[in-house]
Every structure is written in structure tokens, then in C-alpha cells.
């Protein structure tokens, strides 16, 4: 199973002007890994699908910002 984000550790200089962010993250949504969608994938119920933005559970990858604490999303 693919993860919805990946992280890396950029070079940190002793002369950086700002406090360094040691770990940076980027989004890798599920569409990158699926190829052609296989048949019979699990579905949301219609009302859940309207809320989620997709019928297919495999494509659900919600994004939460740093100002929405406690809801997950990328590490900041």
C-alpha cells in the first residue's frame, strides 16, 4: 500500500538565516500508483461519496492544513 506523502531531509547549513525545517514532506496521492483502475474496488455509500469527493475509497486522500489541528494531514 502506498503512503499519501513522502518525506525527505534537505541539507541544513550552519549559516542558515532561519530556523531550519529538518524534514520536508510532499503529497503522493493514490492516483500516482493505481495505473488503470481495477474492477470491483470498494465504494463509499452515495452520501459519503458526495462528501468525500470520490466514489472510490482507494482514491480518498483528504488534505488538512496546519491551522486545522488534530485532523491529520502532512506533518509540518
Amino acid at each position: 500500500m502506498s503512503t499519501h506523502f513522502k518525506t525527505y531531509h534537505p541539507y541544513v547549513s550552519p549559516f542558515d538565516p532561519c530556523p531550519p525545517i529538518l524534514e520536508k514532506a510532499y503529497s503522493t496521492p493514490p492516483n500516482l500508483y493505481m495505473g488503470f483502475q481495477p474492477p470491483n474496488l470498494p465504494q463509499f455509500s452515495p452520501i459519503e461519496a458526495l462528501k468525500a469527493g470520490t466514489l472510490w475509497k482507494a482514491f480518498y486522500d483528504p488534505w488538512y492544513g496546519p491551522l486545522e489541528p488534530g485532523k491529520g494531514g502532512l506533518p509540518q
Partner: protein
Amino acid sequence: MWIYEKKLQYPVRVSTCNPKLAKYLIEQYGGADGELSAALRYLNQRYSIPDKVIGLLTDIGTEEFAHLEMIATMVYKLTKDATPEQIKAAGIEDHYVDHDKGLFYHNAAGVPWTASFIQAKGDPIADLYEDIAAEEKARATYQWIINLSDDPDLNDGLRFLREREIVHSQRFREAVEILKDEQGKKKIF
């Protein structure tokens, strides 16, 4: 032709009076990777692409207009009752001077929408790869707007729109697979 349904694709709620968010949202209205660019890009490419994927471009291009309408609603709600002082505090006084509370197709930096934001190369693979890139860029733009926004209801709508970008990207990727035409054929070269 189109049939118009007079409702939004997803309900737009805005819970805080923060006109500054409108400045960010306008990127998805009249920006290079915004919904207007997306709609016009896909609907224009339909004429010079194999029959098998024309319907996909029609469907997604049409949906982009539904997204455009949602963004417009968000911007309108955030600005319609703003006082000139609030407009100034939000940093959108340049827009106000030119357009009052009217919406306009420009990006977050005020650059007006231009057809050079979109491409039509006529080569089906090149065009679909452009479309995939556009969806991923729009997805990222939604991420950065959500990161800047502290309005939970607005973010709820933006999350929906970001999820749609993921699904659209997936469908364009599948369209490429259809046009590659070797899918499952077990050809031996």
C-alpha cells in the same frame, strides 16, 4: 450543448469574515492552473483527440465549470460585505479600485487570465500529459490555500475540490493507457 442545474456541485460554506482568503482563492479562479484554465483547456482539446477519450474531456471540462462556480461563490461571500477598511487590510485594494466587489479572472498576484495559460499541441499524448500536469498543479494549489486558511467550512469545500483533482488526474492517466492501446494485449515484440 449544456444543461444547467442551478445548484452548486458541493455546498459552499464560509464561516469567518476573512476577505484575505479571497485573494488566495482567486488563483483558482483566473490563475494558470485554475478552474477556468482547466475547463477551457479540456473542452478545447476535444476536437483533435481520438474518439475514445473525447467524452472524458467533455465530462471533466464541464465539471471544471462547476468548480469555477464554487470558487466564485467563495470569493463573493468573502468580499460582498467587506468595508473599504477591510479590503485594505486584506490587501485586495488593487482589485477593489478596478472592479469594486466584482469578480475578475486574474491570479492571486493580479495577472489577468490569458489564453497562454493553456496549451493545445494537437498531439493526444502531449495534450493528456499537459492535462495530468494541470490536475496535479491544481491539487497542489488547493493544498497551499488550505494551509493558509483557518476557516474549517471553507477548507471543507476546498478539500472536496482537491479530491476531484486527484480523480481527474487518475482518469487522464487512464486515458493515456487507452491511447497507448497495448493494455492487456499480451503482445510479444
